[in-house]
């Protein structure tokens, strides 16, 4: 029994190492190259043994459509031997590292006649049983484009352009609103100073309404000038007036400005509506209800402008006061139906 086991183990031990002693060679499967270029054909192997000093690499070449193969490279005894008579003379160079089990060669200045199969065979004594591996070389005049690359590129670029245009459009709208808001704030501040200087300058006025009329006239002149931002000036005057007035009120809370806005809106916007005179000064946004109620008396143009200026107001209120806009939509819906 014991002897049987011993014999079996010896036989097994004898068999297994023999099988694992096969050398495995790796090269590429196919290589593409352009005419006139250089190509590196890589060849490496795997072996259970240490790399010996007698390791050999040999490359053979078989042209397309031919059955014979010729040897073009051999490495043995630590020295490479390249082809000096065949079709690859002076074109083969050894660029491998036998110590690292790399037996790659470099073929220079390719031509259409170099189409064919290159076979690499490596031996690592005593590990010599192995199958050579082949790589196929294809030489092109110009590298063909793979199927679907251009299709995907065209589709991707057009859709990307579309997304870019949408993003830029929304960005511009947002930036315009911010810019108008800041411009209106600065402009109204300047006008306020001018107005107060005018009031104090001349002798005590006989009629307070005359002074106010002159002030409002001056303001009318200023208000008819559109702000400097070019995009706003292309919008219609009424559109700009409604949105800028609302922004003025929004920017400067205060009873006086709310009332001035109401008075001025009577003169410029040509609205026949009656305005609610009760002062609402705590928040800038309630005056929007004035705007909306005013709009009820007018037909479609104001509605269009109020839809557009609603955006401005939403943004202005968000910027100026950080109020939630949910109440706005309800207010809007209540006042304009």
């Amino acid at each position, binding site marked *: 029994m014991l002897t049987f086991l011993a014999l079996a183990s010896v036989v097994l031990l004898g068999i297994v190492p023999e099988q694992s002693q096969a050398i495995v060679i790796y090269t590429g499967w196919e290589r593409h190259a352009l005419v006139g270029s250089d190509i590196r054909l890589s060849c490496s192997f795997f072996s259970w043994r240490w790399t010996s000093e007698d390791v050999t690499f040999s490359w053979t070449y078989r042209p397309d459509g031919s059955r014979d193969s010729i040897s073009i490279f051999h490495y043995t005894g630590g020295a490479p031997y390249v082809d000096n008579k065949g079709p690859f003379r002076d074109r083969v160079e050894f660029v491998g590292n036998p110590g690292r089990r790399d037996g790659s060669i470099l073929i220079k200045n390719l031509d259409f006649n170099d189409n064919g199969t290159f076979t690499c065979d490596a031996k690592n004594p005593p590990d010599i049983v192995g199958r050579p591996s082949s790589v196929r070389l294809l030489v092109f005049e110009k590298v*063909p*484009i*793979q*199927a*679907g*690359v*251009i*299709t*995907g*590129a*065209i*589709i991707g670029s*057009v*859709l990307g352009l579309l997304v870019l245009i949408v993003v830029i459009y929304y960005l511009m709208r947002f930036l315009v609103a911010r810019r108008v808001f800041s411009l209106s704030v600065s402009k109204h501040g300047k006008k306020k100073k001018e107005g107060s200087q005018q009031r104090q300058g001349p002798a005590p006025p006989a009629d307070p309404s005359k002074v106010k009329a002159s002030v409002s006239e001056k303001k009318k002149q200023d208000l008819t000038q559109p702000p400097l931002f070019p995009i706003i000036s292309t919008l219609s005057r009424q559109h700009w007036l409604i949105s800028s007035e609302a922004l003025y009120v929004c920017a400067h809370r205060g009873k006086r400005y709310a009332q001035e806005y109401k008075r001025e809106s009577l003169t410029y916007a040509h609205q026949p509506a009656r305005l609610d005179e009760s002062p609402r000064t705590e928040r800038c946004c309630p005056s929007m209800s004035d705007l909306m109620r005013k709009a009820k008396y007018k037909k*479609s143009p104001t*509605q*269009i402008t109020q*839809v557009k200026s609603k955006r401005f107001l939403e943004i202005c209120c968000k910027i100026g006061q950080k109020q939630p806009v949910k109440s706005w939509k309800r207010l809007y819906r209540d006042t304009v139906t």
Partner: protein
Amino acid sequence: MLLLLLGIVLLHVAALVLLFVSTIVSVWTTGETSSADLWINCTSVNGFHCDPASTGEWIQAVQALMILSIIFSCLSLFLFFCQLFTLQKGGRFFLTGTFQILASLFVMSGAIIYTVMSPEWVPETNSFGYSYILAWVAFPLALISGLIYVILRKRE
């Protein structure tokens, strides 16, 4: 009003269906033994078998243009329904019309490129198939549909 809306949607859907059929069905050129289109070439000489289409740049451009036109037409249908509910009264369906007109332009470019390159791709014995004709029919349909959207105003 509802009838008008239905008619417009039907026209749009018809153009879209034509685009789909033209792109997917493989009959841009037909011959006695072979048929070819943007994606594969099939011959029935030695038993029926199909090869993938050549990988030239122009055929890929035609493929891309047809697919883009389908995408834009679908987008414009979706946008039409969006704008139907969100547009102000008296407003125009500019966005929908723009996308539909762009889709028709893409179909036109694709069909023109195929026609110009046809001496190379379509052998003398073959003739143009019905998918090619459908592509040419889809172009004016989509163009008319897009123009209607641009002119149409939202009422009620």
